[in-house]
């Protein structure tokens, strides 16, 4: 497999292993985060003129879904400000280890029952239920951001490492899953070195750095076998590895999506929640149906309960159950000795490319239509009449409004081909190539539905 270790360039190596560049990037991100919370609470309640809404839901979201996740995987998590205060409290340090690791306070492990991403699935779904309000009201966005940072800090005081990021963060769940598609990875160079290394400083920590904050054993990150899902690209293991045995590779897109890298049930559910919510959001936010929008917005009213039930039923029941039935039909068509659950999990990873494509296409729509709100907001983040960069008067003008629909179709077709091809690989791996047909039919149907929602 083609890999290219970026760390062979000294400057990249310095940038990643030296603590200062990432620290400053994270501190700037935290500054922006605090600023967004402040703007949301004391700035104008008009969303499209408040930094909290425009910077988070238009600028950051555009960067995340259109650039970072598809091309850089989980690297957002490397600079994400949410875990920072908690992590500093946990480590008793901002820059690097300052205490003997033996003297460090012991923190509990996260409860075993939650050592998965089910809580992330629930958290994302909860946000989705209130999304019409969160996305549009600055104060609500601010409280959500503040809540996340407080919960993360609270968890850090009880549980070891980044428990919030791994198991609770509503965003981290899908970034992790979709980072399997990204063309970057952190992997061990020579596995023999790790086997022989008894101290496992990459996991235990050393005077050079903390043990993996993401609670994985970096020594086990093996090219072709491991996946990106839980690696937050924090670069800590580059600092703790005594043998320079870790590579930051450029690789082929989607290299993790291999038949042998099955995703687990919680991750499969994440795939359905993401695909389902992309469909629901496209209908609610981009569709012409006003009553649907008002239902999603009027939290607590009867129409909203209807919307909530529909969203829950669609993402948690209808999509997974129909996919389950599809995989059972597939197994009827071309029987294998595996259990129904194994069949289900085996094919779920085929939905990842289409899911990401759906989110990219969805983001195209509202990002290009609304990115022009960013310029006035940069000059006047609170809606107080400032004009810091002389851009306060820039009018709202959608960009690429003629090209976006065609782009969306292209992206979805790309997702369809990629997902379809993945399906075939999985079927071949199971020596059951006829199983491709029903799964492909499912992916095809979802693609048509998405195309219809975006351009019909």
């Amino acid at each position, binding site marked *: 497999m083609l890999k290219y270790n970026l760390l062979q360039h000294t400057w990249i190596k310095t940038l990643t292993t030296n603590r*200062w560049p990432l620290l*400053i990037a994270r501190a700037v991100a*935290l500054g922006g985060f605090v600023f967004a919370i402040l703007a949301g609470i004391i700035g104008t309640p008009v969303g499209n*003129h408040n930094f909290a809404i425009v910077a988070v839901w238009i600028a950051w979201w555009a960067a995340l879904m259109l650039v970072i996740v598809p091309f850089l995987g989980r690297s957002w998590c490397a600079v994400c400000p949410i875990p920072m205060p908690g992590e500093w409290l946990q480590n008793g340090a*901002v820059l690097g280890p300052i205490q003997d690791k033996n003297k460090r306070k012991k923190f509990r492990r996260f409860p075993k029952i939650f050592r998965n991403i089910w809580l992330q699935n629930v958290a994302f779904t909860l946000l989705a239920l209130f999304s019409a309000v969160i996305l549009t009201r600055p104060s609500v966005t601010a409280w959500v951001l503040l809540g996340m940072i407080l919960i993360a800090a609270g968890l850090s005081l009880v549980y070891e490492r980044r428990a919030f990021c791994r198991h609770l963060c509503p965003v981290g769940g899908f970034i992790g899953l979709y980072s399997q598609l990204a063309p970057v990875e952190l992997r061990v160079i020579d596995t023999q070195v790790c086997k022989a290394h008894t101290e496992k400083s990459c996991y235990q920590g050393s005077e050079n750095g903390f043990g993996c904050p993401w609670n994985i054993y970096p020594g086990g990150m093996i090219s072709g076998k491991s996946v990106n899902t839980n690696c937050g690209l924090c670069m800590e293991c580059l600092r703790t590895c005594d043998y320079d045995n870790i590579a930051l590779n450029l690789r082929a897109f989607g290299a993790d999506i291999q038949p042998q890298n099955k995703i687990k049930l919680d991750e499969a559910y994440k795939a359905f929640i993401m695909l389902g919510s992309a469909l629901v959001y496209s209908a609610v936010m981009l569709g012409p149906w006003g009553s649907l929008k008002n239902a999603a917005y009027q939290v607590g009213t009867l129409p909203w309960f209807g919307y909530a039930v529909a969203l829950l039923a669609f993402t948690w029941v209808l999509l997974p159950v129909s996919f389950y039935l599809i995989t059972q039909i597939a197994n009827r068509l071309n029987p294998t000795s595996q259990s129904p659950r194994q069949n289900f999990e085996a094919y779920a990873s085929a939905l990842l490319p289409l899911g990401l494509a759906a989110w990219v296409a969805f983001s195209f729509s509202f990002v290009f239509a609304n990115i022009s709100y960013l310029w006035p907001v940069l000059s006047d983040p*609170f*809606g107080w*009449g400032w004009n810091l960069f002389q851009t306060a008067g820039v009018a709202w003008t959608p960009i690429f409004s003629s090209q976006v629909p065609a782009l969306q179709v292209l992206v979805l077709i790309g997702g369809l081909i990629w997902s379809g091809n993945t399906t075939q690989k999985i079927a071949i791996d199971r020596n059951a190539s006829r199983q491709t047909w029903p799964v492909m039919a499912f992916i095809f149907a979802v693609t048509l539905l998405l195309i219809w929602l975006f351009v019909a």
Partner: protein
Amino acid sequence: MKKEILARLVVLVLVSGMGLSALVFRIGDNSGIVEVHAAMPEKGGWLTDSIEAQVGEPLVLSLVSDDVVHSFALGQSDFEPVDVLPGVPTEITLTFDEPGPYTFYCTRWCGADHWRMRGTITVTGDEPFSKDLPDPPLYLQLGIDIDDPHENHDLVLDEQPSALRGSVLGLTTPSEFLTQAYYRSHSPHQVWDELRKVPSTSELSESQIWDVVAWVWAQNTNSTKLAEGEALYQRDCAACHGVDGDGEGIFGAEEISGDGTPHEAGFDGHTIEAPTSFQDAGQMLTASPALLQGKIIRGGMGTGMPSWGLIYTEEQTWNLVDYLWTFQFQKSQE
């Protein structure tokens, strides 16, 4: 350890820098500008709705909306209304020469209760508030009870009276019919009755007399007045009374049940009655300009019709009254 301290400092500065500087800037800002927020009436209307100012001292207002487009206008003045935009403050400077209360209000419809968006600027100075009261409006001078029923539903004309036709027929009309005082204090129907008794119109048919009435009305206005009346009508009245004066404006039609019975509407449960149709001859031809002036100035008292007395100048009210007749009389050629 030194590095750690440096790191903490750097982080502290980067994290708190932007937010703190914004706050300091905000709190340190004591330029004396009064911030006025606008919101839909059910969400609070003007915040604040009572402002104080001094005679001769510039009052700087920063106007911003917290939801939809509003505007800021000053009653009984020639101040050009300023849009109050969501999230984008607009600064205006007002200087008052006379002490007294001034009404400010919104001119851009922001819901059925839009007209409730009013506030007061209290201007104080060395002199006390205006000593002598202005003359009471005509309808009060004439002692018209504007709540008295005046309509006559049997009054139906086959054709709209035409001032153009009336201009030929009306050449012999006695001059007392043409004075402004006479026009303003009589309804068209009264004028028609009076004209019928005059010998010079004995030759004319009933509908021809109506044409003369239309001509009399046309004599008391002009295109400039009508244009201003129309502008006010479209801005302030059309949303309920309809662009065509049929009483079926966007809020009129929506708020009222089909049979026109009053029902509860608005956030405080006030009732609303169906807006008057200015196309209804039985309503309009039995009302005098002074009566319409009274209705505009005082408002409908609980019917949903706002009061405009503090908003319009006397001239604006008369221009608006003039315009209302265009729904009854064919427009005269210039």
